[in-house]
């Protein structure tokens, strides 16, 4: 085997991995001549081949010569039209050639000096190009990060990014030549810049993901080399390795989709993106916790054709705009209605869809409190009717019980309602409240009226509960009155809409019986005051809340947690929990604006209080007759 490069696969591997590959192949009886440029194929004088001569004058004998050459763009047509070409038709980030009337995509183009020979970049180019042809003019193709995955006679290879390293970069290397494993990670500015794996490529997809996301790996550095499983947490990122799963293993626990059906759908229907897989198989389309795993499966099936989910995601299919762009436009242009947003941002559909409408509704209400008017038709049914829809179309009703504290008379009324409306199940919730399940829609308003309690907002992207423990009033360990603190917080936050649900807890001592460590805002009383934690989550993927600060008084607890929640309300994207938001901006940013900068904190807190001021209890509004029709079915006279 003759190769021009100094080692095998010199575009895909570094010299060490190339050397390992060479040795492995030599053991199988293949000989190599490297760094040789072929100058001529020698004639045996009878029309056959006799050998090959190299540019350094050496030559080898051969009876058969097989040549492998790469692709070269066929630019003849383009050149004859006078388009500028350099190893391909030169295009801009808009896929426009030097003649603005002509666009080009695919293997024939040279974009920022690179000609791509794979299908994934081509798709990306086509999208941007289509966008410009449709005169939407907002896409930009900035090149593709590619990975290579090869199986060379039973040896697994994977590489991506800048795996050669160099100036300003650091390498982490694991080398076990006897065991046939070599791994090299190249890090630049705390981010993964390149990967080269030889022998064991199980973590290739994971490294590639880190690479594309450009996320800081400083916190993973110690274990980075040992792969995804070494990080040790399970869940959202899809840690269980897609490749080792059996076809019958369940991937999506919500919709009961196993690996085999995902693989089949990908192959049969030619799917390339996570979104397509979600739509066709329903995997990862409910709670989304298996998205990472589904993405891995997709990568392992389609390999380099895999299309990554774009980083700044469009809100939905109705637009190219991201959540951030929509909110910015609403703020800067003072947009107050859905129609204005659709018009200003040139929505492709007349009135949006079930994905963008609720998001826009939230951005409008949170950006312009007391100005923008709520649009009930842009809310998911639960928020529209202030109760949770159940699988049989009935609803569950959860009245507010601040801090989990109730009274005999409330309990009596709840019991009476359960009897009167024949509620099939009465259940205590995890948020220290009582849930009446199986209420018919047409009974809702009467149930609320008979309960005489406020809405518990258990149905919304909104404040849910403040869970508390008993605290110093009764508990012998309690250091502060946690119950009252919880009630005060729940009172302050009543009727608060937010990007996603918000749960709080207040514990009276570090024993933390109220489980404040897994709440969006957790408050733990200590003898000298209160500790505040943020970004916890007890749901899909358990996340421990991070320490924000310690404060002295109950008033400060309200101010600091209120300011944090307002920051979340103003900046998090719709359907991001606090943990996602914090992961996106970093805890330091939050500390700076909520803890260090007192003026910023007070301003945030005031904005929260202003937004919440005078918001009506939705049940009371409905009892008073708002949108009453919605609850009354039309009867046909027989």
């Amino acid at each position, binding site marked *: 085997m003759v190769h021009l490069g100094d080692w095998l696969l010199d575009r895909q591997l570094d010299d060490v991995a190339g050397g390992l590959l060479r040795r492995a192949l030599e053991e199988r009886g293949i000989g190599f001549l490297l760094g040789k440029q072929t100058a001529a194929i020698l004639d045996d004088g009878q029309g056959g081949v006799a050998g090959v001569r190299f540019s350094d004058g050496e030559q080898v004998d051969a009876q058969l010569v097989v040549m492998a050459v790469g692709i070269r763009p066929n630019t003849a047509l383009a050149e004859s039209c006078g388009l500028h070409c350099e190893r391909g038709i030169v295009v801009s980030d808009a896929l426009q050639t030097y003649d603005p009337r002509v666009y080009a995509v695919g293997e024939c183009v040279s974009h920022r000096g690179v000609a791509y020979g794979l299908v994934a970049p081509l798709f990306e180019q086509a999208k941007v190009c289509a966008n410009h042809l449709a005169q939407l003019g907002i896409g930009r193709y900035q090149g593709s990060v590619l990975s290579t995955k090869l199986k060379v006679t039973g040896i697994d290879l994977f590489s991506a990014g800048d795996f050669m390293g160099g100036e300003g970069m650091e390498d982490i290397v694991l080398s076990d030549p006897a065991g046939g494993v070599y791994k090299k990670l190249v890090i630049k500015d705390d981010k993964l810049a390149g990967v080269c794996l030889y022998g064991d490529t199980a973590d290739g997809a994971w490294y590639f993901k880190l690479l594309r996301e450009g996320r800081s790996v400083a916190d993973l550095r110690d274990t980075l080399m040992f792969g995804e499983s070494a990080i040790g947490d399970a869940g959202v990122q899809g840690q269980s390795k897609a490749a080792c799963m059996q076809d019958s293993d369940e991937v999506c626990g919500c919709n009961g989709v196993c690996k085999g059906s995902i693989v089949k759908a990908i192959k049969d229907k030619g799917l390339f993106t996570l979104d397509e897989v979600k739509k066709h198989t329903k995997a990862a389309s409910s709670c989304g916790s298996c998205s990472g795993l589904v993405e891995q499966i997709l990568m392992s099936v389609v390999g380099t054709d895999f299309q990554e989910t774009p980083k700044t995601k469009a809100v939905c299919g109705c637009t190219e705009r991201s959540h951030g762009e929509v909110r910015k436009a609403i703020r800067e242009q003072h947009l107050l209605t859905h129609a204005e947003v659709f018009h200003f941002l040139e929505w492709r559909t007349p009135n949006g869809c*079930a994905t963008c409408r609720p998001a826009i509704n939230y951005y409008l209400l949170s950006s312009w409190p007391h100005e923008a008017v709520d649009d009930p*038709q842009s809310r998911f049914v639960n928020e529209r009717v202030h109760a949770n829809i159940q699988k049989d179309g009935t609803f569950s009703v959860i009245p507010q019980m601040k801090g989990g504290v109730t009274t005999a008379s409330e309990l009596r009324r709840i019991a009476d309602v359960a009897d009167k409306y024949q509620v099939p199940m009465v259940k205590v919730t995890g948020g220290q409240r009582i849930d009446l399940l199986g209420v018919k829609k047409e009974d809702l308003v009467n149930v609320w009226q008979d309960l005489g309690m406020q809405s518990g907002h258990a149905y919304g992207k909104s404040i849910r509960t403040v869970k508390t423990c008993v605290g110093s009033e009764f508990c012998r360990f309690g250091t502060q009155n946690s119950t009252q603190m919880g009630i005060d917080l729940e009172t302050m936050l009543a009727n608060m809409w937010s990007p996603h649900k918000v749960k709080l807890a207040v514990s009276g001592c570090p024993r933390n019986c109220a489980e404040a460590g897994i709440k969006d805002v957790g408050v733990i009383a200590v003898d000298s005051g209160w500790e505040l934690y943020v970004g916890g989550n007890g749901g899909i993927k358990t996340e421990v809340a991070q320490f924000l600060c310690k404060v002295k008084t109950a008033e400060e607890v309200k101010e600091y947690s209120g300011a944090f929640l307002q920051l979340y309300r103003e900046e998090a994207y719709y359907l991001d929990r606090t943990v996602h938001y914090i992961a996106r901006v970093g805890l330091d940013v939050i500390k700076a604006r909520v803890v260090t900068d007192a003026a910023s904190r007070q301003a945030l807190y005031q904005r929260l209080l202003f937004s919440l001021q005078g918001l009506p209890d939705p049940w009371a509004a409905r009892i008073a007759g708002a949108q009453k029709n919605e609850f009354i079915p*039309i009867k046909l006279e027989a």
Partner: protein
Amino acid sequence: MTDSQHWVQICALTDIPPQGSRVVERASGNVAVFRTHDDKVFALLDRCPHKGGPLSQGIVHGESVTCPLHSWNIDLATGAARAPDEGCARHFPVKLEHGMVLLGL
């Protein structure tokens, strides 16, 4: 539709919220009557072809409704699920006369 079809006046157009719906109770299955942003009305059996979710409770956009249970998109005019989902909810004829909604049963 068969000859036995008859038109029943069910409500005024304004009784249905724009981009909303009302439920008509019927012994053989409730009917969801929808009103779009541009005041067209459509009627479907109030049962999603997926797992029977009440379509009347979904979000109406364009000429589609999104089922509240698992977000299938159903075409209001035909009752057909939009690709890649497959299935169809029965649709009923409806017409508007002098601001009143008539349902063909």
